[in-house]
């Protein structure tokens, strides 16, 4: 059986089809908000929130919840809001607050998994949560529909509020002076980022989510200058890398999450090389 026949066989399997649909949608969502996060210097918030999601998932496991996402999502959204508010007017600010919540959630999550193991193999549970393992290939139908629904909601919100998000991303003070409710939109961004993080845990695991958010955006910025150009390029690049990564993973028996991130890194290197070779940064 050659590679194409093998691929044909795999693509006929329902769980592979689910994985490709959900993976594509997650990659698209993460790239859309990735540009905003990178430009607002919020790249690390994604990392912090992903650790919070890991901690929440551990609690959901201890509580033996059938659908962990219904618990993980509100907790992550709450922490996203708290992080954003602490960044504005609190004694512990910015990166320190993110680092505290991030490592705190990671430590508590790991401790809970050890104290109240949900299966006989704790290291397997931890590994699956941190690196995704083959989570994307083992989704239930309910999880697939939940992912599709949330992804559509993220894309619709981004398209509806594109101009406001653009304004808040580039110059928050000017946006505020122009009558834009910057705080409300920052809150919206935080909520949407939390949703993306919870979704992306299925694809790459909580430790690798930041890569999915940052790499496509930074790669696109090598070649494009306008917000629209970078966003469109980032979306195409992220979806392409996710698809290539998933296909390489299922054909080559490599871990799904880290393969996608490896493809993202390769794309970043190619885009950097093109930028150095003089492919002009265009305003697209």
């Amino acid at each position, binding site marked *: *059986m050659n590679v194409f026949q*093998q691929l044909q066989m*795999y693509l006929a*399997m329902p*769980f*592979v089809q689910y994985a490709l649909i959900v993976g594509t949608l997650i990659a698209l969502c993460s790239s859309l908000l990735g540009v905003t996060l990178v430009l607002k210097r919020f790249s690390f918030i994604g990392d912090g929130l992903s650790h919070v999601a890991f901690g929440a998932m551990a609690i959901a496991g201890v509580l033996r919840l059938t659908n962990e996402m219904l618990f993980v999502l509100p907790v992550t959204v709450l922490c996203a809001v708290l992080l954003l508010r602490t960044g504005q007017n609190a004694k512990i600010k910015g990166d320190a607050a993110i680092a505290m919540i991030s490592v705190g959630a990671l430590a508590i999550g790991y401790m809970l998994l050890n104290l109240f193991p949900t299966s006989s*193999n704790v*290291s*397997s549970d*931890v*590994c*699956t949560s941190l*690196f995704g*393992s*083959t989570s994307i*290939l*083992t989704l*239930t139908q309910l999880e697939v529909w939940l992912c599709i629904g949330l992804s559509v909601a993220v894309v619709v919100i981004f398209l509806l509020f594109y101009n406001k998000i653009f304004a808040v991303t580039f110059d928050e003070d000017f946006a505020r002076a122009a009558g834009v409710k910057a705080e409300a939109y920052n809150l919206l961004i935080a909520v949407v980022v939390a949703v993306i993080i919870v979704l992306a845990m299925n694809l790459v695991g909580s430790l690798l989510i930041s890569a999915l958010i940052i790499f496509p955006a930074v790669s696109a910025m090598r070649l494009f200058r306008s917000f629209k150009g970078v966003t469109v390029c980032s979306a195409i690049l992220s979806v392409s890398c996710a698809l290539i990564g998933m296909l390489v*993973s*299922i*054909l*080559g*028996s*490599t*871990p*799904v999450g*880290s393969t996608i991130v490896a493809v993202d890194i390769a794309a970043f290197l190619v885009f950097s090389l093109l930028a150095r070779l003089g492919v002009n940064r265009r305003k697209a």
Partner: protein
Amino acid sequence: MKKAVLMLLVIALLVFPFAALGQTMEPYETIDLDLSQMSGTIAYAQVYQMISDPEAYVGKIIRMAGYFDVFEDMDTGIVYTSCIIPDAAACCAQGFEFVWAGDHAWPEAYPEPGTYLTVTGRFETYLEDDWLYIHLVDADVDWEAEN
């Protein structure tokens, strides 16, 4: 002439054991699901699907390749043998218990735990202490012996 006959004899002697081995290795004419031909990632995910929804696979002939593992219940004395497929990250593993067809003395006839083997058998479910378990019955087991 003598050389030709001798050559044929040698070829026949060489081919016969492999032909015989082939017959013992292939008791099933058709395989419904051949996990041994799938990549590790897909095989792992497929086993997960079969464990999640066993009723959909009952009666199907399954072939899988993985690592031999064994559990001996000290209370009942029952020996459970299984074939385990690790995932690509090597931290998780899925597998099936199998019941080797024929009489095989434990532990002499069995390979060492951790040996890579191929198991072909019929997928069935059974109840034990009100728990639903799955296994491959009438299994044909094959592995390469260490030299």
